[in-house]
């Protein structure tokens, strides 16, 4: 298994280089280093000398992909792409265009993102599975079809409406929680309750449907019929056998998501004024700060690939049939 993990990690490198190439290409299709220098120096005091000096100081004076003047191997290494983008592999995010240290920004903003994303995810998972089990217990009845219709309706509403409606109802009319903002420690609880509730509710429709179909697929298998034939009650069949065996597909969906929780929710955070990574990214998009966008794209891809590897590894723990060979 160790060899397998190593191989997967090595396989991630070309993918991450590809991700970097794409972001890099998109980045410099929009900006030239001259534009960036002008934006940072301000329009008033730009002279060709100043721009050149800024570019040299920030390392933007090099060619993009291929350095003709450099000797030998440096033709490839002494370029903007190698110098700027490949630094990301050392998790050296550098500075944003506004001059702040991106890695310290990320560390600082990770906590607010997690304080929303983690509870939303956990509560959502438990509610979804519980509701799905309840519906599976009453499968084929009126309750089943009614809840499934409601689930489709919940799915069909844009997340933006949930946020706006929630803010209007609970903050503006009922005054239960503040509309937006953030505080650290227990003080912050009142700020995160509403985003968490909205997040859980918005995911309810698709979640319940997904787990329901998962359990239904499991319930039609032979071993369940055997268990029932042995005289086990429906509830113990459901909880002892179906849930246990449904764990593996649940795991697939869950483990991939866990690492990406760090990224936070773009929309949720910017609506509720929470200084997490999601709003960090959205602000960077709006101010066209590509230093940050580049770093966040890289981080997102790393977490995604990490999640995929994690899923495969967790398989071996939960299903003895799965063997990973290097």
């Amino acid at each position, binding site marked *: 298994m160790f060899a397998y993990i190593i191989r997967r990690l090595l396989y991630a490198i070309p993918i991450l280089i590809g*991700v970097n190439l794409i972001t890099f290409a998109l980045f410099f299709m929009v900006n030239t280093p001259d534009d960036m220098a002008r934006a940072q120096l301000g329009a008033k005091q730009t002279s060709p000398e100043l721009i050149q000096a800024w570019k040299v100081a920030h390392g933007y004076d090099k060619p993009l992909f291929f350095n003709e003047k450099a000797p030998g191997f440096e033709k490839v290494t002494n370029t903007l792409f190698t110098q700027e983008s490949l630094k990301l592999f050392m998790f050296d995010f550098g500075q944003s265009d506004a001059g702040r240290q991106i890695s310290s920004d990320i560390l600082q903003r990770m906590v607010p993102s997690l304080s929303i994303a983690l509870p939303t995810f956990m509560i959502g998972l438990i509610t979804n599975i519980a509701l799905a089990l309840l519906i599976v217990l009453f499968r084929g009845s009126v309750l089943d079809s009614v809840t499934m219709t409601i689930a489709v309706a919940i799915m069909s509403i844009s997340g*933006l409406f949930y946020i706006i409606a929630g803010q209007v109802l609970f903050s503006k009319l009922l005054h239960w929680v503040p509309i937006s903002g953030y505080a650290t420690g227990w003080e912050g609880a009142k700020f995160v309750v509403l985003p968490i509730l909205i997040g859980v509710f918005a995911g309810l429709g698709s979640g319940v449907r997904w787990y329901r179909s998962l359990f239904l697929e499991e319930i039609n298998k032979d071993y369940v019929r055997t268990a029932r034939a042995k005289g086990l009650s429906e509830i113990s069949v459901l909880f002892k056998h179906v849930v246990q065996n449904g764990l593996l597909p649940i795991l697939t969906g869950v483990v991939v998501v866990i690492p990406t929780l760090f990224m936070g929710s773009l*929309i949720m955070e910017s609506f509720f004024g929470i200084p997490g990574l999601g709003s960090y990214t959205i602000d960077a998009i709006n101010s066209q700060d590509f230093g940050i966008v580049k770093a966040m794209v890289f981080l997102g891809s790393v977490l995604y690939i990490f999640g995929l590897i994690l899923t495969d590894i967790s398989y071996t723990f939960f299903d003895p049939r799965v063997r990973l060979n290097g």
Partner: protein
Amino acid sequence: MIPLFNGISIYFFWTDIMIWGLFFSLLVWSRVIGRSEQVKAQWHRVFESNVAMIAAIILVTYFAIALMDSVQIHLAHANTQPGSFLDVLLTHLVSATERTYSAPFALSEFTKSTQMGLNGEMQQVYLPLKHVDATASIWMQSIEAIALGLVISAVLIGLHGLYLARLNQTSLIGMLSAIWFEQTKLPWRTAYITLTLLVVVMSWLFILSYSFHVLGTDQVGIDVLYETLKSIRTGVLIGVLTTLVMLPIALTLGITAGLFKGWVDDVIQYLYTTLNSIPSVLLIAAAVLVMQVMINNHPDWMQSTAERADLRLLFLVGILGVTSWTGLCRLLRAETLKISQMEYVVAARAFGVSRAKVISRHILPNVMHIVLISVVLDFSSLVLAEAVLSYVGVGVDPTMNSWGNMINQARLEMAREPMVWWSLFSAFVFMFILVLAANLFSDRVQTVLNPRDNTK
């Protein structure tokens, strides 16, 4: 510009051409489908469900409105702004702009304005709206509108009933009674009831919009009903055209990877894994920024703001297409791998049937259900994505009518005291109906077409 007659000429934007092209190819495709008994029977089964029938009628209505909004008509003699066919139908709403907010069916403005009173002192008053007929009776007009709606739908149902009667070689009365007692295979009764309801509601909105702002007006006094109807085109186009971009890429790459294996497979797999591992909103945002710079650097590409907005929509569709083909491609690759191992395909290859023929005869027909399911599933998520992207500021042009832009503006309106709720409400209702219909329809398509699905 294509001149028609009497100084009327029509014009198509790029997205207009695409949507009409798609419409006609759908027509041709349905003809082709009609030839295969098996496929025809499958589609028949899709429509056997009441819910699917209702959803389909609603979807067709939205699509029709989007199509009506996709022909630009220019009237040379009327000296008006060129607008779409829908604009021509709703001319009374285009010209009926007020000064500011007004609530649905309101007779006066939403906020007080300062006005010189009769005795020379300043007063705070609610100014009456310019384009509202205060003498009109809502009830009388409603009755007229409903009557008109009933007549129109009776004509439509009669025509369709006649067609069915011809097809089944019975009389119109016999056919209609069979439909009413649900003796037909397809749920035509449900279809007729839905149609009647839709037509009545539409004629009610239309007739009352002459005397009132049925859904109120927005910040700069534009009729909200008009805005919402114009937004339909944006939503439908993004949902439909993205498929058009995404489908060829996914089909070609997916089938190639599955069929040729080896290094081709490796390259294609690498391509979609890489694209997949980039958070899609970021990729879209970056691409949209590139596009903005490109549009700003080439002002000669378009003559008007409408054209610029249209070009931006086209780009957005392209970008969404490029980012969303990966999922379907992976599914198609796996399915092709499976099918190409099957005995009949191996036998065909052994008999010397060419690769192209194997693809067109064996592989394409057998992956079609996957394509269809993912296309109808994607539609609703794309409509929802438009709203989110417009909110982030990387969606459609801010001057273009779209539900995303309406919701975006609603954020500010909600903070007003008292609240301006009607723009958000209208956008919500129109978007919800479309997405709900699409979701319900895709559910049905999934249950009928997916051979493995045993949940129902």
